[in-house]
């Protein structure tokens, strides 16, 4: 049962992670390292930082984010990511669904006696 629960948590994390990436990009563009550390700061969201890069590549391929290279004040150029229009639409749609889902679950599991 515990193993099953762990698997479920992992799946929930995996499923929601990409929307967290989109949300981090909602207001500003960020470069890879900054984005990865931003996600990792939140406890319980990312266990291996390196796995974010394959996710970013998939979001790019799916057209939800786009990237461009910019000079960095120190060191080599950085790849900056920003939301595309369809990325923004995907994020908005997820926000609505997520709120409904979260409220519905909270309604049961957080019910005060």
């Amino acid at each position, binding site marked *: 049962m515990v193993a099953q629960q762990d698997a479920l948590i992992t799946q929930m994390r995996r499923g929601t992670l990409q929307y967290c990436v989109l949300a981090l990009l909602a207001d500003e563009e960020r470069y890879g*390292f900054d984005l990865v550390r931003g996600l990792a700061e939140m406890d319980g969201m990312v266990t291996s930082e390196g*796995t974010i*890069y394959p996710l970013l590549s998939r979001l790019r391929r799916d057209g939800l984010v786009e990237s461009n290279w910019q000079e960095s004040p120190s060191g080599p150029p950085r790849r900056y990511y920003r939301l595309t229009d369809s990325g923004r639409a995907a994020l908005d749609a997820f926000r609505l669904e997520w709120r409904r889902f979260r409220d519905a679950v909270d309604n049961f599991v957080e019910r005060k006696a």
Partner: protein
Amino acid sequence: MVASNADKLVAEYLKALDSELRGLPRSRRGELTQEISEHIAEARSGLEADDEAGVREILERLGPPAEIASAEDPAGPARAGWTEVVALILLPIGGIIVPIVGWVVGAVLLWVSDAWSTKDKLIGTLLFPGGLLIPLALLFLAEESGGCGSVVNPQLQPQQGALSCPPADGVGAWEILVMAALVIVPLMAIAYLAQRLMRPPAAPA
């Protein structure tokens, strides 16, 4: 410059990652390795160059190379597009449709595609150049000269000298074998390339 232990740790990590990414198309493999390497460089910019413990922590946070490799979208860039499909059609029969040029176009498409590794591309190119053009041409010439004297097409006469007349009782066994190999090997190479497009083997359709 002497490499510090910290540098060695990073080099080992990147090497392990690169080998875990073997199954990916070369361009994607290089891109991901480069991103991870830049991540490490960025994280190290706040550390002393020889801060071994600091580097260990960075690598630990990145996670095991195998985990990063398994996060790559399995159905990723290897998916077959029109380039791959056209290449697989032109390699065997392109040379027949437009002699030589058709095959060359197929080979070029094979090499520009991201979906195959260099090894796959070598197999596709060398087994056999021209695709089915060579066996077809041989068959054609053999037929033409088959009668040994009863030439139907006089234009082919100059080429006859180059071809030995088959034995009286027809085509020899090893000629059939060579012919069969010339037909089967390129078809097998194409089947191999097509199967490589269906990666990963973990998820057979």
